[in-house]
């Protein structure tokens, strides 16, 4: 028996499912996540009445553009997210980055992109921050675009309904009271916040629904699922969609190479980068 195979006989299926995920999303399953693949897909197997990963693989390969393929890919993705995740980052956005952008943007238009927004908590956290900052944004056009490769996550984000457990993680009590209403055992975000964010299913590596440049891009806890070549593509997408002075914020512990001279790391926040935009942007890999 191969000791590296978590489920004897399913090793090849796990390998092929991992390849499928990589082809569709660019994401690599780490060794530890491969061990959980059967657990992640078990509810789908049960729902579809399929006896094994082999049977699931056979079914999705027979209909590669069908709903089961989307559900399979989705079940293998990590949808972990929470409101104001890493509160120090959001404090820096509220106290430093947004006031600075407010002072710089003469046309009174602020564009933000949450790339890999999962189920929406991060994008809604930004919307709540802007509301909290109050009258200084009066008269501004504010656009928050939020994308994720998972259509199912985007549907949940658009609904803006969260469980009590979702609410517990990071959401300050005053934001809860101000922006959420109970719906049964869950909580619905206010339309005023929901309407500030435009959610779309899209792949960060080849975005089709994102255009123009942004003043602030958040792409947190996404890059570490990508191999190095895909990280470079992601970085080039950030370069394509920023202007000199834009910020890109990654997750804690994630790093972006500054060797191409397009981004420099911020002195204020360790996971933030500032776009410098040198003349040779035309050499980017897209």
């Amino acid at each position, binding site marked *: 028996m191969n000791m590296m195979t978590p489920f004897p006989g399913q090793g090849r299926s796990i390998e092929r499912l991992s390849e499928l995920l990589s082809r569709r999303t660019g994401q690599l399953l780490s060794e530890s996540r491969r061990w959980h693949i059967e657990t992640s897909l078990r509810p789908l197997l049960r729902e579809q009445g399929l006896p094994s990963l082999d049977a699931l693989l056979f079914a999705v390969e027979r209909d590669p553009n069908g709903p089961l393929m989307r559900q399979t890919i989705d079940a293998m993705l990590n949808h972990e997210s*929470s409101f104001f995740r890493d509160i*120090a980052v959001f404090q820096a956005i509220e106290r430093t980055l947004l006031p600075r952008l407010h002072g710089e943007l003469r046309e009174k238009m602020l564009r933000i992109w949450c790339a890999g927004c999962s189920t929406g908590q991060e994008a809604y956290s930004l919307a709540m921050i802007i509301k909290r900052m109050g009258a200084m944004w009066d008269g501004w056009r504010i656009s928050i675009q939020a994308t994720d490769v998972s259509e199912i996550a985007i549907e949940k984000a658009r609904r803006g309904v969260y469980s009590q457990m979702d609410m*517990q993680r990071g959401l300050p*009590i*005053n934001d809860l*009271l101000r922006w959420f*209403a*109970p719906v049964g055992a869950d909580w619905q975000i206010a339309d005023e916040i929901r309407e500030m964010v435009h959610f779309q299913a899209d792949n960060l590596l080849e975005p089709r629904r994102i255009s123009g440049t942004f003043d602030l891009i958040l792409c947190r806890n996404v890059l570490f699922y990508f191999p190095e070549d895909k990280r470079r593509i992601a970085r080039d997408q950030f370069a394509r969609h920023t202007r000199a002075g834009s910020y890109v914020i990654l997750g804690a512990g994630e790093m972006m190479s500054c060797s191409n001279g397009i981004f420099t790391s911020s002195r204020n926040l360790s996971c933030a980068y500032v776009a410098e935009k040198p003349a040779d942007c035309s050499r980017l890999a897209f």
Partner: protein
Amino acid sequence: MLHCLVVDDSKVIRKVARHILESLSLHVQEAGDGREALEMCDAQLPDVVLLDWNMPIMSGLDFLKELSRRNFANPPKVIFCTTENGVDHIRAAVDAGADEYVMKPFDRDTLESKLQIVGVL
């Protein structure tokens, strides 16, 4: 070391909370009701209070009212714990002076995020 007072009439909840809080490097003291908690605050003011709502002798709400009457220069942050998620219930706690709330049962991540929100961590 930051000092947290856990106020709950359930020994189990106090034990779970202590375990989590100590793992976050907080020094923990326990009280079984609001009256005992007030006496402990008078002796030594904690940095943060994790406060149950429904307790015998003195409830969480009455404890908060008594605490605010004392007009401490640096009052502790108060995170109240509840099993109810009604908006009216949460609003009453905020009006009485609570800084945050947490639903039971809670885990380490939840409690840590609440301590960050109130500025203790």
